């Protein structure tokens, strides 16, 4: 003990009765900034290269985006002469980009519908709001959304889905693909983990085939084949067809995420439930799934981001989502087609949504980690 007294020995915090004396690793000194940037030859080169990239890019971007740009103009002539960005185009066209070819005098409806959907999304973020009421609220919200957009009842004029466009289409596709895909994903995951060969083989086959295919080919399949595969008289509109493809796709990916959670639950949980006399359905519903889903919430948010981004692919089957509406707005010949500005604007909307979700997932992970430490 005489030698040990000189060392920074202290009991480890929660070791209880069996307190052990342990040697803490020496704290790393924080290197001064000059050493971090120019400490070694390699580091100096890296710093200089990064600084060169920044110095070359940032002033040009400022010149293009702010100094030389046109912010207010009623038509394209000012933009044609300027060398900078044409933000005036976005000011003139933002309604068309956000709501597509929805009748302009009715555009308060998509605005209201999107606002309502965002409110429900914000309400569902805090984990303490996760209960049965939330599921009910979502059903109501989606129903209200569809009624508001479609109309034909309550004195609203009928607007067929062919006239829907922009952000509402993107949002409803993402929400329905994830919302309807989730229960199917859970069923597929349970099937894949099943001891019975028939559901297992069917689930594995479905999941692997769908995951092996590009989404573009699924979209093609549903837009071309679905009308042929349904009986005569049963038609399904373009938006719903794309929705079906996205739902099938998200179900397969969600199934793999949920399977990860199912695999993380110890076998003993199911055995204990069986010993208590619970039926298979009750075992799954009350013992396995609540624990498994709790575990996979962070990876689930990743799939949500992927699906939000994937809705942009409906471009290939000619639906007017946010991206296609932007492309349509660019076709106006009276403006000089500021492609870069429009795509940056659309990318920014996606970025805000997806980055928000990824930060939210980090918050959830930290929260789950905090629950582990007692």
């Amino acid at each position, binding site marked *: 003990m005489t030698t040990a007294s000189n060392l920074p020995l202290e009991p480890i915090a929660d070791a209880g009765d069996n307190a052990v004396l342990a040697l803490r690793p020496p704290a790393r000194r924080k290197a001064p900034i000059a050493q971090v940037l120019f400490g070694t030859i390699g580091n100096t080169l890296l710093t200089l290269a990064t600084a060169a990239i920044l110095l070359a890019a940032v002033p040009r971007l400022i010149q293009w985006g702010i100094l030389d740009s046109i912010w207010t103009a009623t038509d394209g002539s000012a933009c044609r002469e300027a060398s900078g960005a044409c933000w005036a185009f976005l000011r003139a066209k933002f309604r068309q980009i956000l709501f597509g070819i929805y009748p302009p005098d009715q555009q308060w409806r998509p605005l209201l519908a999107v606002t309502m959907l965002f409110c429900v999304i914000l309400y569902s973020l805090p984990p303490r709001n996760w209960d049965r009421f939330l599921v009910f609220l979502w059903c109501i919200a989606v129903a209200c959304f569809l009624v508001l957009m479609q109309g034909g009842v309550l004195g609203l004029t009928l607007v067929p889905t062919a006239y829907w466009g922009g952000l509402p289409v993107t949002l409803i596709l993402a929400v329905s693909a994830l919302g309807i895909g989730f229960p199917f994903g859970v069923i597929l995951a349970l099937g894949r983990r099943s001891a019975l060969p028939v*559901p297992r083989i069917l689930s594995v086959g479905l999941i692997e*085939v769908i995951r092996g295919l*590009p989404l573009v*080919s699924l979209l093609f*399949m549903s837009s071309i084949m679905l009308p042929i595969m349904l009986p*005569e008289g049963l038609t399904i509109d373009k938006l719903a067809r794309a929705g079906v493809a996205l739902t099938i796709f998200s179900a397969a990916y969600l199934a793999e995420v949920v399977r990860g959670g199912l695999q993380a639950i110890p076998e003993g949980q199911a055995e204990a439930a069986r010993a208590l006399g619970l039926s298979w359905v009750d075992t799954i519903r009350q013992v396995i799934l609540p624990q498994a889903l709790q575990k996979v919430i962070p990876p689930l948010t990743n799939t949500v981001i992927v699906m939000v981004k994937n809705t942009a692919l409906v471009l290939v089957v000619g639906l007017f989502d946010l991206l296609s509406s932007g492309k349509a707005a660019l076709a106006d010949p009276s403006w000089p087609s500021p*492609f*870069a500005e429009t*795509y940056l604007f659309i990318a920014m909307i*996606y970025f805000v949504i997806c980055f928000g979700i990824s930060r939210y997932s980090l918050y959830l992970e930290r929260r789950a980690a905090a629950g582990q430490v007692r």
Partner: protein
Amino acid sequence: MRSLLHPSCEIKAMSRLWFDARFRSYLWQSLIMLAFLATVTWLTANTLDNLVRRGIQTGFGFLSRPARFPIAEGFLAYDPTNPYLKAFAVGLLNTLYISMIVIVVATAFGFCIGLGRRSLNPLVRGLASCFVETMRNTPLVVQLLFWYALLTIGLPAPRAALEPMPGLFLSLRGLFFPWPIVEGGSGLFGSALLLGSAMALRAFAWQACLGRPKRRSPPLCAGLGGLAILLLGLTVWASDIRISLDQPVLRGFNFTGGATLTPEFMALVVGLVLYTAAFVAEIVRGGIDAVPKGQWEGGRALGLREEHILWLIVVPQALRIIVPPMTSQFLNVVKNTTLALAVGYPDFASVMATTINQTGQAIEGVLILMSVYLAISLSVSTFMNWYNRRMMLVTR
């Protein structure tokens, strides 16, 4: 008495059967199978019914008919009188070519970005993080369209083409650069080149160049390289081969001669590489984070330099964690090449889309499309699983 007993016995037997686990599992499985088969039969019956009603001929006979549509670029000589099968081959080669380039470049680039995110240098770290977050949180199609717009609208016309290097022209028609032309003795030259490269590869992989530091012998390695070059030179000299550079020249509205990278190709490659690199970077960072801190500390205690710890201790261990998620990333690249459709590069999916539009053979088209992508996916994952087994930690 006996007549009363009989039915209750029967109920008992039936209830015993009902609660028999094996019987129940068979019952459930046959019900699921029945539901599945019923759905499939229903859909097939509807399809056949609709096909007859619409008068659509099914079958793969159309494959040998002339395609009658042009394909902008490809490796095989193709013209619109060629059959559909040839058009598919051109598209498939384009898909594989793009996938291969993107996988190789994005892996290397993403590896650097991933290391950059764990760099001690705050400038590098910040730039890498910004890059990764921007790329990962915006849809790939939007990025592709953005690059395509930059390359077609943002660049000048061929007459005012940018010339970043002599002989290199960048305009809205694409990138034009000189290309060597080999004339005469092509068979001999080709075989010599093949033999030489095989020898060089073998020599490089040989202990003298890649072995353990102690066994490495730079003079021998350099000697082998010199010998390869000498052999190559001798072959060129011996077989009256003329190698000349074909320079791109502005003629009329466009350049002729040299080699070209079209804006579609460049937009697709740049977009896919940057997008994939961001995901690769995250995988690499995750792999490096997963190597225990003690490994770094152990390396420091041995007096190794930081970059030696990284390359000799941490990266080899991180590779084992990196390889499986990388497999799915590579599969994503192959699947993402279908977005060539958005920028108009003739990959397999867009050739197929044109075919379906032209012939109306939707079912056959979709079937071919799906089976080709499934086949590619399966082969990539088989290869990566083999690689993973080789990289795995061998314990006892």
